[in-house]
């Protein structure tokens, strides 16, 4: 039994199934992070001083570097998809590899940020600012890791599909890319809200 519109577009909606699926999924993700951003706003509005006295100073240069890294990974992700559209599997492998490399770089920087804070006793329990900082960036890190697992699969074992069903494989990269841009976008909101404002 074959499910229609897995690869080809449905004429009246102009979509294939997974593309609509990922958009709906991202809508729910927006609500998830939206809930956390609302929590952040409510905590901030309710606090007498923000950030609370005696809290940790976040490392802006490191976060700026990470912002650049993540945006670059988004660009290489698009390039990976575009390479497949241009039928260049070798370039796809390279750009997808770069995407994974930049994602890993983001995590390494984040690791140094976290450990510097934690080693000075700035745990989530210290105050509500650090609590929301760790919760939101932590959830974002989980999203990065999830994206890396999917991208890693598509980079290595999953890329066999390019031979059997190139159209569907290209769609998969597009869908993974949409998710990856979303993860990038979340960071673009997190960075100013937590580090700059």
């Amino acid at each position, binding site marked *: 039994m074959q499910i229609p519109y897995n690869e080809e577009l449905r004429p009246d909606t102009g*979509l294939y199934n997974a593309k609509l*699926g990922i958009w709906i999924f991202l809508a729910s993700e927006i609500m*998830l992070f939206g809930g956390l951003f609302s929590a952040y706003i409510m905590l901030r509005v309710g606090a007498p001083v923000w950030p609370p006295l005696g809290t940790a100073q976040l490392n802006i240069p490191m976060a700026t570097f990470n912002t650049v890294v993540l945006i670059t990974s988004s660009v290489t992700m698009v390039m990976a998809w575009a390479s497949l559209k241009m039928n260049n599997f070798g370039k796809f492998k390279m750009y997808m590899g770069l995407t994974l490399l930049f994602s890993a770089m983001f995590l390494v920087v984040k690791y140094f940020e976290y450990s510097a804070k934690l080693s000075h006793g700035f745990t*989530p329990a210290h105050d*509500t600012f650090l*609590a929301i900082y760790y919760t939101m960036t932590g*959830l974002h890190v989980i999203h990065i890791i999830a994206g890396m697992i999917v991208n890693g699969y598509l980079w290595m074992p999953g890329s066999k599909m390019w031979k059997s069903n190139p159209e569907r494989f290209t769609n998969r990269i597009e869908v993974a890319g949409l998710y990856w841009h979303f993860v990038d976008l979340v960071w673009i909101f997190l960075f100013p809200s937590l580090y700059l404002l």
Partner: protein
Amino acid sequence: MSSQDHHEESFISKYIFSQDHKWIGIQYGITSLVFLLFGFTLMMVMRWQLAYPDTVIPFVGWMFEDGMLSPDMYNSFGAMHGTIMIFLGVVPMVVGAFGNYLVPLQIGAPDMAFPKLNMASYWTYLAGGVIMVYSFFVPGGAANSGWTSYPPLADIATTGQTIWLFGMVFLITSSLLGSMNIIVTIVQLRAEGLTWGRLPFFVWAQFVTSFLLVLAFPPLEAAGVLQLMDRLAGTSFFLPSGLVVGGEILNVSGGGSPLLWQHLFWFLAHPEVYVLILPAMGVVAEIIANNTRKPLWGYKSIVFASVWLGFMSFIVWAHHMFITGMGQGMSLFFQTTTMIISIPSVIILSALFITLWGGKIRFNTPMLFALAFLPMFGIGGLTGLPLGLAPTDIHLHDTYYVIGHFHYVVAPGTIFAIFAGIYFWFPKITGKKLNEGLGKIHFFFSLIFINGVFMPMFIQGLAGVSRRLADGGVSYAHAAGVLEWNEFMSMSAWLLGVAQIPFIINFFMTIFKKVDGVADPNPWQSTTIEWTDTTSPPLGHGNFEIAPVVHRGPYEYSVEGASEDFIPQTKK
């Protein structure tokens, strides 16, 4: 992927890890029926404690210390009754079971858009259910801060609350996967000619419901993450500064807000109410159109009303919070939106009532349940009005009146619609109609006793009896005048349990009944695709031998000049 077409399936891939939407629907249905029974049993035990405080419980007393339900256990049972009924019983039933089984069939699709996700959705749901049941056996028992898990209480509650939160994460993930799937299926896999205006109302109801699930559940997931952080990492998202517990100031950083949880929680939980009721309305609409042999009155109006209802349900949540001191401006806004949201519900209900007018009504069991749904949901809706207005809510808040109100919506409302649906689509699944005699016994006794349970709650609630007392109000003078109702309600609840026995007998008797010959694929003479274009039940792995092509609307009953009193949607 032609290799998938005709291969033999092993027992495990066919019945356990099935990717067939029909079988997953059945898995959902059976599991949620078991959970409904379990949640109801918890309540039957609690009702003993309410009717006869501090006496040994018969039959199940051996499970408890001293044979009685301690106040702590009572709280656990209350919290878990709500959680199980809503998240493990009704939602998986109306969306997981009915949605999964019927949506692809009613839109002429070969399966759901993502069969693997569909399977994952069921198994995550089951895992969540197992975690919830497991929480009864941890030290301190299951979650005991109410199904709403309000902090600060929930933040400092026993381990059961942590398990509850983990269980909720699984249930949220499950319904997210399921509802994404339903949306994509409805948008992408409709049969040729099945335009939006020709969708059966049931499909519309599932569509709106799925959007509510996709958009409303994540904020609760966010809130759940925050509460887990509070409980496990020692943060203070929901703990204000200087909170005193047991005479001592709690050793936390403070600075959090208990109201934050309520906002995030009710942002889910109010749309959730419409998740419970919309699919039920969809089921009832199908059955009423079929059994009055008339087109649904005002099809377009009720479709628009359901979309409007879905939209409005996102901006009424704080009417649960009138007495929290969130401010008059907020109360004014939310009571206005709450009054507005009653309009689409009334439109839908009125359209269903008007459909009855002049119809040749067939009073079979599914129709009886569907008919009872209308006034029962009506009572539930109307008694909600005083709760939606801040001045009256101040008096009624947290009393038995609230319990009566929402149970009228969900129990004789949604659960009656579920029974209507089970009686109606049972022949679709098994090829055999459930026994009418037993069905009518089941219906009439259920109707009587369910009103016996919930009607007196309004009386007690108006007298001001709080909903959370383990002794049912014995220790409060103001409750003295209405206490005698406790025994009456408990008796009704147990008799309601007895009234379900004919259903259980009927269910198994019919399944194991031997019938000769080929089953009638369309025993109710219905117009929609799931009856008219499929082969005799039980259906195999594929849905349709030839992809259906739709030529007309969903409710062409008693059309003048037609040879029969119904014209299938796929007839030219």
